[in-house]
């Protein structure tokens, strides 16, 4: 792997800046602006989504860059969660949900019916707004998906369980009670367990749907630190209503808004630009707090 750092003159809007596809984005990336030439991981063009006849998303086009944190902001009901669900094909599970448009993931058509959805979801993990620990022990919560994917050797499973729990900073808190019910954990711990469970499958991408919104400020801060620490190692796409949080952690930001009763992407760009010099007046009003 060859990190390609760029000088300050090259820190341009990636949309106008053509990037070679074989570059990498690993390394310490500061919030606000990427330190190196980003590699496109998802390329989304004209994505629309309908629930029955009701449109939820209309003509969304954007690129997601590898190793970066992309924050999606906007008011409730503007299709951010639906957008996330199209990226790991979770929309397949929703009845009456129709997706049109083009999504390239790593250069492959993600919406191709022949795509191995199980493999895809292994690469693209998802964290939900409400923590969903399974009705099992803490250890078993992480073990179950691992065993499902053929990792059955006990020593290997144990080491992964410890590794991911350490990654999310939960190991010290739960190492003595791995066999007790995951439901006995606090909300913040449950959410971190869910993140650990997703990390155990070694995904490339983490989709996070308001991972902090159901948590108290202290747990929220812990989870936020955790997300920041994932930068560079994982590509993170996070939906958040907390603008300050988006500003703190994201490299890129996309602003969704409802127009004609369907969600659409109003503005997308580097986080700093979206928050400090928004192009669209709706974005300006929203990040300013005067709309939405």
């Amino acid at each position, binding site marked *: 792997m060859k990190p390609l750092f760029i000088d300050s003159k090259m820190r341009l809007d990636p949309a106008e800046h053509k990037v070679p596809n074989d570059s990498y984005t690993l390394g310490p990336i500061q919030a606000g602006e990427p330190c190196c030439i980003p590699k496109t991981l998802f390329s989304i063009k004209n994505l629309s989504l309908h629930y029955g006849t009701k449109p939820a998303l209309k003509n969304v086009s954007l690129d997601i860059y590898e190793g970066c944190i992309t924050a999606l902001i906007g008011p409730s009901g503007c299709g951010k969660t639906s957008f996330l669900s199209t990226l790991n094909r*979770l929309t397949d*599970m929703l*009845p009456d949900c129709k997706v049109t448009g083009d999504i390239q993931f790593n250069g492959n058509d993600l919406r191709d019916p022949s795509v191995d959805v199980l*493999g895809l*979801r292994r690469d693209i993990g998802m964290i939900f707004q409400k923590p969903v620990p399974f009705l*099992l022990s803490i250890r078993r919560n992480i073990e179950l*998906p691992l065993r*499902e994917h053929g990792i059955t050797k006990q020593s290997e499973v144990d080491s992964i369980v410890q590794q991911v729990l350490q990654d999310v900073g939960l190991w010290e808190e739960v190492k003595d009670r791995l066999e007790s019910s995951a439901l006995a954990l606090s909300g913040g711990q449950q959410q971190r367990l869910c993140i650990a469970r997703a990390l155990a499958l070694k995904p490339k991408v983490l989709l996070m749907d308001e991972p902090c919104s159901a948590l108290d400020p202290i747990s929220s801060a812990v989870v936020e630190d955790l997300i920041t620490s994932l930068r560079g190692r994982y590509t993170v796409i996070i939906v958040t209503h907390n603008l300050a949080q988006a500003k703190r952690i994201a490299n890129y930001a996309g602003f969704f808004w409802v127009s004609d009763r369907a969600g659409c992407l109003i503005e997308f760009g580097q986080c700093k630009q979206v928050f400090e010099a928004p192009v669209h007046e709706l974005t300006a009003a929203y990040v300013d707090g005067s709309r939405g």
Partner: protein
Amino acid sequence: MSTNTLATCLIWLAALFVTAVFVCLLADIISQGLTGLSWSYLIEPPQDAGRAGGIGSIIVSTGLILLVAIATSAPLGLATAILLTEFSTQKSTFAQFVERSLDVLSGIPSIIFGLFGNAFFCIYLGLGFSILSGGLTLACMALPILIRTATEGLRAVPNDYRLSAAALSMTRTSALIHLLVPAATPALVAGLMLGIGRAGAETAALIFTSGYVDRMPDSVMDSGRALSVHIYDLSMNVAGGDAKANSAALVLIILLFVINSVSSFLANHWMHKRIIHL
């Protein structure tokens, strides 16, 4: 008196009335049936059409009939409930047709089930008056209520579980086995209990299918008399059988109570074990 106090009084009265009915019924059966209850009563065969002796063979027949009913209805019911909740949408024509059929089925009087069981199991399939015919007929009767409760139980499992499992790249079957069915276990057990309760208390359907014969059955192909049929027979057809009928009724109530407690204990214990050890 304020409206509030009045409403509170009425609600308490209603609750008291309902409880009183249950207590009176129980007290009556206990006071009349307890005297005849003894260890020998439970194991001896009935004599003189039930006026003397015990109910040993009848308890065995009842147990076998219930066993046949549970063994056939539980897997069928669970499978149907899984099909309805997990593999078809609530709006699909097929699911609606199945659910409508079950609704109609659950409203059919038990005597009709008895006649159907007699015509289909006893005569058409050639099983004759047997414990097997009786058990299968009871299974048909218990199925609607069992499927209904199991379906509700599975639907009550939050969709988050399904989505989370899918997001963790788990297959549907695996999510079903490891997450959904365990989460719905209390409801599944409750459904089974309601089904067994209905089956265990059934008389009309059994008279036509498992018959009256009160000797010890050799196999499930033998005719066998269920407790409820025994109670009916003693109180309606046998002069001087009332005391024994009361004792048998008490045994039936205790039996249902025991089955109920044991199964809910097992369900809890099993859930607990899953969390701790698996």
